């Protein structure tokens, strides 16, 4: 494994984007930063620009307006950039699947990019952290450890 990739898996820089979510998942992601869960002790950092991101946490069911911007953001991110679908909406649109306001699901807007699906409404912070860890392990080819 190259040096860059090794650095990536030790200290993932994570960018968070909402594609029209109710905010529950977004709040639980923020919760990961806070004293009880504290992802910073795992080296994970929430960054302010997608250009610095190793992983993209996406929430929301892909509302048409927001989905365009998610796509543009992913295109700006340096690759490899792992996309992690957080919450049932991001995984498969859930109850919003047939809504006129939605486009296709995340993994069709960004085909091949989604490394992990973390279902839940919202998923608990522990589940989100596990999702990030599992996604990172896919880079090492050991996702099922």
């Amino acid at each position, binding site marked *: 494994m190259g040096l860059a990739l090794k650095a990536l898996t030790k200290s993932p820089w994570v960018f968070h984007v909402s594609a029209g979510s109710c905010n529950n998942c977004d709040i639980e992601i923020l919760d990961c930063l806070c004293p009880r869960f504290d992802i910073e002790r795992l080296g994970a950092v929430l960054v302010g620009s997608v250009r610095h991101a190793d992983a993209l946490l996406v929430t929301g069911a892909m509302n*048409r307006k927001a989905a365009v911007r998610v796509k543009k953001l992913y295109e700006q991110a340096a690759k490899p950039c792992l996309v992690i679908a957080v919450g049932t909406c991001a995984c498969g649109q859930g109850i919003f699947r047939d809504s*006129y306001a939605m486009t296709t699901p995340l993994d069709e*807007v960004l085909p091949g990019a989604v490394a992990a699906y973390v279902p839940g409404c919202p998923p608990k912070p522990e589940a989100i952290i596990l999702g990030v860890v599992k996604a990172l392990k896919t880079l090492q080819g050991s996702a099922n450890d």
Partner: protein
Amino acid sequence: MTEDVVSAIRERLGAKLQDVNVRSPRRVYLDVRPEDLTEVADELFNGMGARYAIASGMQTADGFEVLHHFAFDSDHVVVSVRVRSGPDEPRFDSLAPIIKGAEFIEREMRDLLGIEFQGHPNPTRLILSDDWPDGVYPLRRGKPWEGTVRKEI
């Protein structure tokens, strides 16, 4: 109290009211001709100081209907003012010139139901995405977007 509010409304607006339905102690519905809407709303909002809570529009079997909901908080009653139109080109006076709180909801009804609000200061798209075609109103009966709007962005 509701009775006081209802009598005051009748006194001030009598002839303008097609119907007054005291549905329950806390819910009153007034039916009004579209040409009288602004005057009635003005009296409730400015004359009587009611709070503008929201409006709800819908397509009915006969056409369209908009309900503007006014809350008389200290009297513990919500008074809703109803205007109706026929099925073609639904159009009502905008309340936005006298009630700033009505601006957004009228734009939303325009987006989702295709109702025009005459005199609205900014009758532009509010919540539908930029790529959504004109003339497709999702809250109208059935699924007006099917066959017209591509799912993919």
